[in-house]
C-alpha cells in the first residue's frame, strides 16, 4: 500500500515545540519568567482549542470591537496610482486600530488564568489605549509603560489611557521609545509575576507571544480574503502592511500565506528596518533580525512613527523573509508624510503614520504593479498623529 502523501507544513502554521519559526523565535528570558511563559503557553493552547473561549472572543470582536471591519475600494486613489487599491479598514475598529484584536484575546485569556492585573508597553499609544480599554471592560488593573519621548509625541493617547483608568509609567532609559518601554515592562513582570499578565502588543517577545498574538490577529486576514473574493471575485495580487513588531502584517498575511500567487509585502521605516538592515540577534526574548552594532549592542531606531520605532521585528517575519514568502522594503519619513496627506486628500481618510508607510511604498512602486489589485492593511486611524504632522508641516501646507 502506498503511503499517503504527507501534506506540506502550512506556511504560517504553529511554531515548533521550542517556539521556533524556522531558525527564529525561542524563549530567551530571565529564569524567573520561564515558568510564566510556560503557564501562558499551556493556557493559550487550552483556550484556543476551547469552543467556549473562541465564542467569547468572537462575541467581543463583533459586539465591542466592531468586527468585521470594512473593506473599502479606493476609487480616486486607484485611478491616480494606476492600480486597484483596496483597504482593510482596521482604523474603524473600536479604539482606532488593529491592536484591539490582540488585546481582547489576551485580556480574556488573562482573566481565564485568574490574573487581576495587566501590564503593557506601548509606542504610539495605540496598544496602550487598547489595553486600558480591555482592562476597563473586563475589570482588570492596568499599568502601561511608555517611552518618555513617545509620551510627548503621543500625549493625546497618554491622556486617553488615564481617562480609561490605566496608570502610565514613563520608560526613562536608553532611547526612551518603544524598545525601552518593552525593557521596563519585562522588568516589571519579573517583579510582579503571580497575579500579573504581560499583555505584549505585537508578534514579538518570547514564545508563545509571537504565535499567540498572530492567532488573535488572524481574523484580519481571514475576513479580508473572503471580502476580497466577494468584492473582486478573485484574490489580490499584492497584500501590503506596515511592520513595526509586525502584528498587523502577520494578521493580514496569515489569510493569504497559503495562496502562492499572492505577493506579501511588509513595509518598514528606513530608520527601523530590522529585516532590511538587521542581522540575527536576541533581544526581548526572541531570536530575530535586529538592528545592532558589530558587538551586539542594540541600535536605536529612528522613525517619525512611534509605533514603528523599533529595532527588532517578530521572529515569524524573519522566517518569512528567509524562505522568501514575504518581502520587506523600507520607506523614509518624507515619503510617509507625503502618503499621509495623499490618503487624506484623495480618499478622505486620515491614516495612522504607521500604515501611511504601506501607502508610501505602494505609491513609490506603483509602476511595477500597474493594473494589479493591491490590498493594503489600514491598521489604524491618524487622529493621534495629527498634531505631530501639523508641527512637521508647519508652514509647508498651503
Amino acid at each position, binding site marked *: 500500500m502506498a503511503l499517503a502523501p504527507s501534506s506540506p507544513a502550512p506556511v504560517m502554521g504553529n511554531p515548533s515545540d521550542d517556539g521556533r519559526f524556522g531558525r527564529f523565535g525561542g524563549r530567551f528570558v530571565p529564569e524567573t519568567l520561564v515558568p510564566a511563559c510556560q503557564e501562558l503557553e499551556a493556557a493559550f493552547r487550552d483556550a484556543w482549542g476551547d469552543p467556549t473561549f473562541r465564542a467569547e472572543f468572537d462575541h467581543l470582536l463583533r459586539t465591542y470591537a466592531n468586527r468585521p471591519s470594512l473593506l473599502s475600494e479606493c476609487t480616486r486613489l486607484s485611478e491616480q496610482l494606476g492600480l486597484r487599491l483596496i483597504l482593510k479598514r482596521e482604523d474603524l475598529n473600536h479604539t482606532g486600530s488593529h491592536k484591539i484584536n490582540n488585546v481582547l484575546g489576551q485580556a480574556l485569556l488573562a482573566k481565564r488564568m485568574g490574573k487581576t492585573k495587566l501590564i503593557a508597553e506601548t509606542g504610539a499609544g495605540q496598544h496602550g489605549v487598547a489595553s486600558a480599554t480591555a482592562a476597563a471592560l473586563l475589570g482588570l488593573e492596568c499599568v502601561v509603560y511608555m517611552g518618555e519621548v513617545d509620551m510627548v509625541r503621543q500625549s493625546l493617547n497618554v491622556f486617553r489611557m488615564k481617562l480609561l483608568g490605566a496608570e502610565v509609567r514613563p520608560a526613562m532609559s536608553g532611547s526612551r521609545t518603544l524598545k525601552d518601554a518593552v525593557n521596563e515592562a519585562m522588568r516589571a513582570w519579573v517583579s510582579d509575576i503571580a497575579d500579573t499578565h504581560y499583555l505584549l502588543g505585537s508578534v514579538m517577545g518570547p514564545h508563545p507571544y509571537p504565535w499567540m498574538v498572530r492567532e488573535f490577529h488572524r481574523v484580519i486576514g481571514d475576513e479580508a480574503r473572503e471580502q476580497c473574493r466577494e468584492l473582486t471575485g478573485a484574490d489580490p495580487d499584492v497584500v501590503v502592511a506596515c511592520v513595526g513588531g509586525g502584528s498587523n502584517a502577520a494578521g493580514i498575511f496569515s489569510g493569504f500565506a497559503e495562496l502562492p500567487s499572492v505577493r506579501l509585502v511588509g513595509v518598514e521605516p528606513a530608520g527601523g528596518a530590522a529585516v532590511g538592515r538587521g542581522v540575527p540577534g536576541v*533581544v526581548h526574548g526572541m531570536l530575530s533580525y535586529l538592528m545592532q552594532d558589530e558587538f551586539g549592542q542594540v541600535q536605536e531606531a529612528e522613525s517619525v512613527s512611534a509605533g514603528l520605532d523599533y529595532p527588532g521585528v517578530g521572529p515569524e517575519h524573519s522566517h518569512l523573509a528567509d524562505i522568501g514568502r514575504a518581502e520587506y522594503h523600507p520607506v523614509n519619513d518624507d515619503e510617509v508624510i507625503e502618503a499621509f496627506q495623499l490618503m487624506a486628500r484623495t480618499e478622505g481618510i486620515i491614516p495612522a503614520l504607521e500604515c501611511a508607510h504601506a501607502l508610501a511604498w505602494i505609491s513609490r512602486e506603483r509602476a511595477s504593479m500597474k493594473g494589479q489589485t493591491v490590498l493594503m492593511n489600514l491598521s489604524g486611524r491618524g487622529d493621534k498623529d495629527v498634531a505631530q504632522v501639523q508641527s512637521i508641516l508647519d508652514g509647508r501646507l498651503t
Partner: protein
Amino acid sequence: MIDLEAHLRRRRAEGRKLFVPYVSGGLDGEWVDLVRAFADAGADAIEVGIPFSDPVMDGPTIQEASVRSLERGTTPHTVVAELRGVSDEIGVPLIVMTYYNIVFRAGHRRFAQELAEASISGAILPDLPLEEVGPWAEAADEAGVATVLLAAPTAPDERLPRICERSRGFVYAVSLLGVTGERQSLATTAVGMAERLKAVTDRPVIIGIGISNAEQAREACSVADGIVMASALMRLRLDGASVQEVAAAARKVREAIDG
C-alpha cells in the same frame, strides 16, 4: 585559568562563606583597580559586567553603570582584554556577566575562546535559561569556561534539579522576584530559595540580586554558601566613592559573613 567550581568547593570545605562582589566592566579608568581591590578585600570570585544596551534583569543602578560604561566606548573586547592575566595575578577567579546577544553576536566558540584566553573562569547570561543554553554551554564546556545558571523562586520543584545539573561553578540563587538593585531588607524568599537548592544539589549555592549590606549578607549566608553583591557596591562608586572606599565596604561584608 582557575577552575571556578573546584576553587569555590575548596573554599567552602575550609568552612568559609563565599563572597562574590561585582564590578561594571569599563565603568571608569579605575575599574580594574577595583577588581584587584575586591581581591584584597577577601573576594572568593569576582563578577565583571560586560555592559549591554538592553539589560532586562537590571535595575536602575546597573543600568546607569552600563550606560556610563558604554558611553566611554566600552566593548566586550575591551573588557576582556583589560582582564587578561588579572585572575592569575590576584589568584581569584573572574566571571563575566552579560546578556546573550553579546555572546550570540560574537559567536559561541569565539566568545568562549576569548574568555579562556584571558583566564576568565565563568560566564553568567541571565537571559539564557535552561531550555536555550545548549549551544553556548557546549562551547563554554569545551573551552573550560563555567556556565553559571540562575534559579528563581518561580521555578517549580521539578525544575531545580535540572538547573543545578546543567550549571557549572555554582548555582546562582535569585533571592527575590525582581531585577538587580538595592533593597531595604533581605527578601523573604531568599533563604527559602537557598534551602530548596541546597536540598537538591551539592554545588555551591550563592544568593544574589538585591543583597544590599553586610547584615543582609550574613542573614543570607545562614543557609547559602555565599552571596553576590552588585548594585550596593556600584551605587557607592557611581556616587563618587574612591576605589579604597568601595573596597572597604566590601571588606565589611567579608567580615560580616565570616561572623
